[in-house]
């Protein structure tokens, strides 16, 4: 009986791993009338866009709107204030596949989909992106090509942090440097509120700490990554 149970467990694990691997590597074909990421990237600002993507994270729902960090296997999207009921907002969990129709916009350098509506795509795979290491691209013009992707920046030195309102509660502005050049990062409170581990961890950073940071490569007058995790540099 024990042997049978052990075999069943092993088989379950194997199948699970297989399924996960399949999920990670699968690239679903876009539905009819849906843009590929390349087509989306090539579209002009203000063009109407139709995309399919996977939710990576969301900001807090508010006033029947929700802002979503999304991606597919080719690139990433920032879906600004999607029209969304509170009920649907609860279903926008990481990995969920959605079809979005809206307009491509650009605000302070951030390329986004605005004035958009969405629908859930049933039967698709679930996809959560792994962070891409963009440390070497900091300060280069190439970095913008990865806009909105989940990125990791390694070995960054903390120059200082500043609470937007002078004390915990709102955004945290984080200045990190690498090889003497400074870069702006941000803990966006509507993405990671003061109760989250990352908000608290960033609040405890001291100048001189060396850290690896993961976050969505948001843009505000230049790169301004929204941090989702921070750890001591490996």
């Amino acid at each position: 009986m024990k042997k049978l149970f052990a075999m069943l467990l092993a088989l379950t694990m194997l199948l699970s791993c297989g399924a996960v691997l399949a999920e990670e590597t699968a690239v679903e074909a876009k539905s009819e009338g849906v843009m590929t990421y390349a087509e989306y990237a090539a579209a002009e600002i203000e063009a109407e866009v139709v995309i399919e993507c996977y939710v990576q994270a969301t900001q807090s729902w508010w006033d029947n709107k929700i802002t979503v960090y999304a991606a597919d296997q080719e690139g990433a999207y920032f879906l600004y204030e999607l029209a969304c009921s509170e009920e649907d907002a609860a279903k926008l969990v990481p990995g969920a596949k959605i079809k979005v129709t809206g307009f491509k916009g650009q605000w302070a350098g951030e390329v986004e989909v605005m004035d958009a509506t969405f629908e859930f795509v049933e039967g698709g795979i679930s996809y959560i992106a792994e962070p891409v290491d963009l440390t070497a691209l900091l300060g280069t013009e190439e970095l913008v090509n990865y806009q909105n992707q989940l990125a990791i920046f390694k070995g960054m030195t903390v120059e200082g942090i500043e609470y937007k309102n002078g004390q915990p509660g709102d955004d945290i502005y984080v200045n990190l440097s690498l090889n003497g050049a400074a870069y702006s990062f941000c803990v966006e409170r509507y993405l990671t509120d003061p109760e989250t581990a990352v908000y608290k961890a960033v609040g405890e950073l001291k100048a001189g700490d060396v850290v690896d940071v993961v976050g969505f490569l948001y843009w505000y007058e230049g790169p301004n990554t929204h941090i989702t995790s921070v750890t001591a540099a490996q």
Partner: protein
Amino acid sequence: MSRMLKNVLLLFLCAACLLLTGCHGSQDKSAFEIPAAFDESRTYEITFWAKNDTNITQADLYRKAIEDFQAIYPNIRVNLRLYTDYGRIYNDVITNIATDTTPNVCITYPDHIATYLTGDNCVAPLDGLMTDAKYGLGGSEIRFDAPTKAEIIPQFLAECAFDGHYYAVPYMRSTEACYVNKTFVEKLGFTLPEKLTWDFVWEVSEAATAKDEAGNYLVNGQKTMIPFIYKSTDNMMIQMLRQKGAGYSNQDGQILIFNDTTRELLETVASHVKSGAFSTFKISSYPANFLNAGQCIFAIDSTAGATWMGSQAPLIDIAEDKLVQFETAVMMLPQFDTENPQMISQGPSMCVFNKEDPQEVLASWIFAQYMLTSEVQIAYASTEGYVPVTSKAQESAEYQDYLSRSGEDNDLHYDVKMQATQLLLEHVDDTFVTPVFNGSASLRDAAGQMIEEVTKGVRRKKTVDDAFISNLYDKMISLYRLNLDGSQGSSGGKQELGPLPGTAVTLLSAIGLAWGGIIAYVAVDAAKKRKRVKNNGYH
């Protein structure tokens, strides 16, 4: 009807009535009555929701004011919650009205209070509090040097009155200014007039759209130039209509905005969007960032945003290598009739929410009053191009000294900020506010949204013509639930109240059930009577 069924129905009706009474009690408050004396043997914990302009000095000043106040009234503890967006405060208050967890004191706009007032006795009227001999403005029992009612600038105080009552006190006042890259205006061959006209701004803006063969704008040599950017398009529409003498709304809550003048204004905006001469904050980003990067010539924003404007601004949000040097002129916003200038009066006010405990409300009022002291007023007004709302503060030696030192440094005495302040101080009589009624906040949103929609429409290569604007009117009326004749002003508002709270659902369900029970009882009883009649008839 059997006795048993009758009893069941009666029991049900009693239960429904009890349920109704219970809900009623938890939702409605008694009207606030000023206690005869403030009970200082007790301690009070009150919450204050405040707004700052993404300006940490302002945040610090709120904290200092609270600290100073608590030193005077150690039995009143004030918990501060800071926002950087009036809309978020409004939304949170609406949500908290439903759960009876409103703050005690809240920075707000009169338009918003009009919506809050739809909750029974939700906002404390301040008429009695203001004039109370002991605890009123400058009252005998107030432990700090508060202003009297007469020392609040009358225009500013009047903005806080509606339906014949004061529901707020002004906290700070500002208006809008046009921050101009004078260097570029002159480079384009123009000379700034004493007062800007819309024609002048459009003309210069159009001239600034000229490019060289490589696609660089001639005026700045860059790939980006949006000559004219407006931060608050609701103000843009409201002020244009006011200057034109055209309809917007009236005191009865009638909505007059969907008129031919609005149509003409939208067509004008569309034509300048098409040429690339105009955009908005919502579509492009902060006017200050474009202005400071030499990518904008006319940036219209609040005087409370003055510290972000200009090459030497103390607050800068763009990379140093993007900053360009230019001369900044601070001017009144463009006018259609320069002899009769019209500019909006805006800025935060404070309301006090009613609570079950009148002592708590009184404690809140005392704190709100503290925010009107000259010390707080001058300190906060100096953070931006605000003006204090009391003559007591405005006329004080400290404030006069502050004003006299314009340009001494690029921090506290930053000349652009000081000019913005002077603009309002010199033109208080040229300011106006729009009528306040339940739904006026939505009308304001709609006014701005029409400019946004037209701008987006053109940018998205749609034909913006009569049909587009007619459709836009219909869309705005529907989206913002605007009641044009004002007959149902109380229901105006774009999903202002959100989904019904659970207690309301319970209440409404109970009402429904009660009525159902009543009808069932009557129906059964009537049927029984009819049966009797029938039976009698048969006999």
